[in-house]
């Protein structure tokens, strides 16, 4: 895999998190492909090697398309989404970026680790940690996220009020 492509995708991921850190949710949404799948399976404590995110009908913390992601953003813009009012202080970190597959340079499978710190009014500070398994697609308008599976490394997770 070319170093240039890795650098390019790393830049895309960093730019994406800049948007989320700075409440540019509409611009972030514009990075989503029209048939995006954005999902996070629940975790289980099973025998080593038995956890299978492809198991049919396994519950998900969320499993979204462009429409439902848009609803989440619209909700946050109402001013009465109380879980995020006043807005939490959020900082996104991305690391360990790897390109696993590329169909030429048109469609690229990228994995990365994330940490998202959140502090809310008078409440406990929360760290969300995990990995993302992405497919990014190159379009005339730039890179678009086609699929993202988010694997949270939490047994008991906090309320997920932020995008990762």
């Amino acid at each position, binding site marked *: 895999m070319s170093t240039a492509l890795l650098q390019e995708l790393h830049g895309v991921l960093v730019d994406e998190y800049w948007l989320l850190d700075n409440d540019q949710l509409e611009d972030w949404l514009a990075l989503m492909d029209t048939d995006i799948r954005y999902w996070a399976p629940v975790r*289980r404590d099973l025998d080593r090697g038995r956890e299978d995110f492809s198991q049919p*009908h396994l519950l998900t*913390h*969320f499993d979204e398309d462009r429409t*439902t992601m848009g609803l989440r953003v619209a909700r946050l813009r*109402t001013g009465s989404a*109380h879980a995020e009012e006043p807005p939490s202080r959020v900082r996104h970190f991305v690391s360990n970026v790897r390109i696993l597959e590329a169909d030429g340079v048109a469609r690229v499978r990228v994995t990365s680790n994330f940490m998202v710190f959140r502090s809310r009014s008078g409440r406990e500070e929360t760290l969300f940690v995990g990995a993302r398994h992405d497919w990014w697609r190159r379009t005339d308008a730039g890179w678009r996220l086609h699929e993202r599976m988010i694997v949270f490394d939490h047994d008991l*997770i906090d*309320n997920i009020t932020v995008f990762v």
Partner: protein
Amino acid sequence: MPAAMEDFSDLVDVDRCTVSPRVFTRDDVYRAEQARIFTRSWLYVAHESQVPEPHDYLTAFMGEEPVLITRDADGRIRVFLNSCRHRGMRVCRLDHGNQKLFVCPYHGWSYDSSGRLRGVPQLETAYYNELEREKWGLIEVPRVESFRGLVFANFDAQAESLADHLGAMGWYLDIVLNRSRAGMVAMPGCHRWRLEGNWKLAAEQFGGDNYHTGALHRSMIQIGLGPQGDYRGEHPWVRDFEVKCGNGHGWINFDVDMGELPPAQAAHFEQIRAQARETLSPAQADLILTIHVGTVFPNVSIIAFMGFTSVRVWQPRGARGIDVWSYGLIERDASPEVVEITRKMMGLTFSASGIFEQDDGVAWGDIAGFQGGVVRSRYPFNYQMGHGHGRTMPDKPGLIHPPSTEIGVFGFYERWRELMATEPPDTP
């Protein structure tokens, strides 16, 4: 009552319909609840479909006690404390599976799916064969009963039957759980998340607080997904109502236009409507596939909405903590497409990331986290809405009132007060 046992019944004023903030913030109240409520109430532990075969198991909690639910070699569902009799470590630390022996990691004592102590390392050389193995099996929860696939257990051997305990609540639960011939199964996995807040704030809300929707979930109404228009509903008393079911249980029924459904889901609903005419009474069948929300006292709630059914346990974790465990149920014969639609709807709306449920967590955390001060604790919370205006009706059980009312919510605290004022039972 022994002199040493503090009576907390003054924290709930049944004449004025008020509840002290201390009920939600004080550690001594919490400790007393564990002894007086959780040792003698029917507590939800599993869905039968999660342990279909002999030696299948699932781990869960009854209050603070970790439990192991097994189906034994004879096919009977058993519930044991998940705790080795030697030093107490959990003998099973996995969520679910199938195994005939549970080996404690610490010193290697092993138990079978009937709870019998089987293997003890160095039985001859260290215990001189003097250990009475038959007396050191897993501690068994004496009462296990099911209602339409929901398995409940009770530490109190003398407790009334689950059916008697549910009473009127059983009639309402049937509207969801018995609406189809095939019955329901649990989808794989469990939504588990941790909230600040007191477990009772969650339980009371699901047991009869429709009032909060317009304010706390205002954002949902603003984006067109919450209940619009008249808050009493289109059919007050008929399909839009709340119920004080007795024994602390409460139910909310609300009929909303679900809009245009995906074709597969619409077909699924039609099938259920046809079957419900056979499996339910006409009065129950008239209510299927509306929004149902209810709490079975003390700490399991159900919400059925847009085709999904979440059964969630509010695990008490100190006065200011709740671990939510939510399982998803769906008709056993639903097509894969329908299961996917309902799974996604459950995650979107009622889950750790749910666009309704996120906001509930903020309210419960705020109350339990900030309102334990000495001064605030002197002033009770108001639960007076609608008392004296409920009705009994010929076609459905319980005390009925259209939204909004707090007769069901306060019924939860009447039951709580009753149990907190009496001595706990002898338990295993």
